[in-house]
């Protein structure tokens, strides 16, 4: 009974949202907007619960008897400090905003720096890790398109017939990515339909 009830709620909400999308100005559009607002609010509450769960996970890692993880204490101290300052000074306070920004920016920037180095290293490791025809095509096309988009061949555009060839080559990655994106969009649509018809129920295993 519970299962049928969940499927009904999920399917009816899904169909109402779809119908609202195709009926601008009608009551269905109003229902759709409200349902989406509820979804956003629920998503925010879910995030809050998940953050509290994360705090509990790190708390357990610090205060466990076996395999204690001291690094988790940095998370707990940072989290409680920012939370308390936010509660005491308010979310609009300049000090709180700067503190928040500094913490987020420093983490994101350092991770980006590591990512840049990791990706540069990946280029060198690529051919040693994978030695097959597809990898060879992948590697060669990467170098060719890097050169092509760097503008190094722009002088050759004055030569007759070169301009259409260069333009054609430049459109190849766009064509490829469009093809992949069409496939992904179809897959996303069919996944959504499976949930809409209740054959896939992520909310009820």
């Amino acid at each position, binding site marked *: 009974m519970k299962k049928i009830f969940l499927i009904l709620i999920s399917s009816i909400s899904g169909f109402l949202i779809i119908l609202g999308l195709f009926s601008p100005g009608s009551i269905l559009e109003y229902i759709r907007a409200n349902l989406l607002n509820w979804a956003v609010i629920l998503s925010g509450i879910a995030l809050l619960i998940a953050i509290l769960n994360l705090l509990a996970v790190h708390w357990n890692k610090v205060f466990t008897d076996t395999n204690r993880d001291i690094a988790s204490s940095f998370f707990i101290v940072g989290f409680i400090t920012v939370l308390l300052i936010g509660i005491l000074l308010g979310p609009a306070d300049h000090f709180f905003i700067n503190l928040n920004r500094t913490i987020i920016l420093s983490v994101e920037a350092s991770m980006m720096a590591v990512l840049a180095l990791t990706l540069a290293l990946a280029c060198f490791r690529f051919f040693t890790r994978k030695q097959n025809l597809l990898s060879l095509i992948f590697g060669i096309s990467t170098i060719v398109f890097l050169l092509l988009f760097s503008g190094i061949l722009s002088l050759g555009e004055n030569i007759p017939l070169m301009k259409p060839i260069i333009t054609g080559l430049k459109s190849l990655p766009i064509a490829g990515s469009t093809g992949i994106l069409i496939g992904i969009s179809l897959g996303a649509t*069919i996944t959504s339909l499976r949930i809409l018809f209740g054959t896939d129920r992520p909310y009820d295993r």
Partner: protein
Amino acid sequence: MDNTNLLLFLFFIIFILISGMIFYFTPLKNWLEIKKISSIINLKKSIGLSIEHGKGLHISLGKSNLNNIHGAASLIGINTLSKILDQSILSDNPPVATSGSGDVTLLAQTTFQNFGKEKAGFSSTEQSNVFLSGPTNMSYIAGAIPSSSKQDLSTQVLVGNLGSEIGLLLNAGNRAGNYSLSATDNLEGQAVSYVYSDETLIGEQIFSIPAQLDNNKIHALSLIVHDFLRWVIIIAIIFVAFLKIIGIL
């Protein structure tokens, strides 16, 4: 949306409903065969080896919320988690799942919790086994790296929406000598994971994981419908290009 789009969409829904009903209610469904992807076969082997050696698995569910266009990839991630849980029933080391979104984390925890209820003897440790590792792109990766580079881990599966930052997670797993399979709906993520991952699913192959991991006829059917629609679009593109070449359009 104009009427043409609405008609096309309704046609699309009706087509899927009719094809679904025909396949579901006729013996045709018994003949449904899908081509097995070698990456998924290798993943199954790796899960088997992990269980044999008492090692764990890390499943990364990506960073996307369910209420945007990348939500479908996250749903596939949850489905994959469910299938992997089914396979790792005998493991002493239950899988660890990380996510970058609150709603996906709660759904994954529900999956884990329900699995614990269904299978006796499987401890319900969902609180520390499924968690949000960070709410932003990079904090998610920073929080997931310790889980993917643990010594008692042998397999990591990344299914969901992950950008180029997937490289950091895969690199950490590679250093620990873990087998990795990645499937993302992000183009940059696909390119980076092709370089770093042992097995990579490109393009829409991410949506075939549920059908590949179990013998559910509905999943197989949806994969066939997906393939059919893709061919319809390919033919339509070629037809429109042909009309443009001959000057009709």
